[in-house]
């Protein structure tokens, strides 16, 4: 969808057209959800934040600055909401020091959280991603998964392009090291390390 077409759909959505709003959701929900999933490592968080981001954006379409793309605005809102969520909840799986979370015994509580973590533990890539710092993870995901150019990431994250490249370089290297470590380690040891 071109920018002009997108703006037509946005105007219709702003006028209260449910169909147009649905079009915007269907067009962008996958990218926002996968970004948030890769950032948080938790499907429930990704789902909640994705939903809230869309609701915020769609109920404030009249405030949209047409100089930007809808996706950039959506991701800005999504990122803020996710950061707020991190501040409030300090989620167990969202940490750069993987072993630092859990209860006194070093393991998280039984139940839903544990089941989700087990599901996530199967995803080597996700586990490796969680070893990256927040900034590294974000830059790597935006560049390699979302296919954003470096200049746009720099604008979005309000940091110099050199810093974005630095995070990319370090993030990729760390990701490669983490993935080879995870793949070469026995599964039980990995589960321990992850939990």
């Amino acid at each position, binding site marked *: 969808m071109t920018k002009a077409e997108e703006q037509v759909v946005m105007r219709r959505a702003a*006028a*209260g*057209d*449910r169909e147009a*709003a*649905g079009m915007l*959701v*269907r067009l962008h*929900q*996958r990218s926002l*959800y*996968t970004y948030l*999933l*890769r950032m948080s490592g938790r*499907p429930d968080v990704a*789902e909640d934040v*994705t*939903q809230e981001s*869309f*609701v915020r954006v*769609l*109920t404030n379409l009249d405030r949209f600055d047409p100089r930007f793309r809808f996706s950039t605005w959506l991701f800005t809102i999504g990122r803020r909401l996710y950061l707020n969520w991190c501040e409030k909840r300090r989620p167990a799986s969202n940490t750069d020091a993987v072993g630092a979370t859990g209860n006194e015994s070093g393991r998280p509580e039984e139940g839903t959280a544990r089941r989700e973590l087990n599901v996530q533990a199967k*995803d080597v*890539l996700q586990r490796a991603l969680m070893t990256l710092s927040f900034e590294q993870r974000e830059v*790597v*995901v935006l*560049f*390699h*998964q979302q*296919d*954003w*150019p*470096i*200049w746009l990431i720099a604008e979005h994250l309000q940091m110099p*392009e*050199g810093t974005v*490249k*630095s995070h*990319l*370089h370090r993030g*990729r290297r760390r*990701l*490669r090291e983490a*993935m*080879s470590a995870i793949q070469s380690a026995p599964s039980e040891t990995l589960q321990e390390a992850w939990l």
Partner: protein
Amino acid sequence: MSKQRPGEHHEDFTEFGFREIGGDSTLDKYLNQEISRRSPEFRRSFQQAAFREELGEMERIVDSLKRSPRTPDLCGSILDAVHERRPFVAPQGRLWISAWRVSAAASLLLALGGVALVQRMRPETLDLSPSPRPLTTVVAAASETRVPISGSSVVGIVAERMTGQASSAPRREAAPLLGRTLAGLGVVRHVEVLPADGVLASRDSVGPGWQLVGDGWAVARTGSLKQEAMVIPASGWKPGRIKLRPVEPMPGTIDPASLIGPF
């Protein structure tokens, strides 16, 4: 989407303490889409086995990053949540809203157009400045109600008749004539010459109780009060309306007849 902005220069990573060996740097540039596989730099590095191995590993990682995990369809729940906070409008409703907006805009435009037309045809109609009270009105009001008009303004109008004769009439002659006439009007403390927006088209439109002063001039009569000459210098005279106010309050009740006396 191109990942490189046009005219962008490549950053020097040494400031970040990177391991600036050839393969690493070239690999970063390639992965950042700053160089292509066809570039000499890439070809040189590609000859090294370590580079090829690292490249293969990184490409596998990047490929796996690009593979999207299963995404739930959140469309329905999102739209329901949006509808709760800001209800959607049915197509019929949107049509009504659009029609209402168009009609409101059209009405506004029509109103503005009407105002502009009236302003052009009858500018005095839209004059928002305090309207002068023609002497005839004062007289009529006094004769009917015989209320004191003490302190009220007696407003006259001097207007240039918009005829060829009037426009060619020498103003130096008009001014003394006007001064003499004003002297007959009584004591005035304020003569205000307003812009010629109240120009009268002909003497007939001035109505009864007006005195022609010179060729092409008309002035209101305000009755005989205390005599005092009021001469408007020729240089300061402009055709238009003048506002006359008595220096002293007019005596209690004015007999209309005293206002209509001959000049």
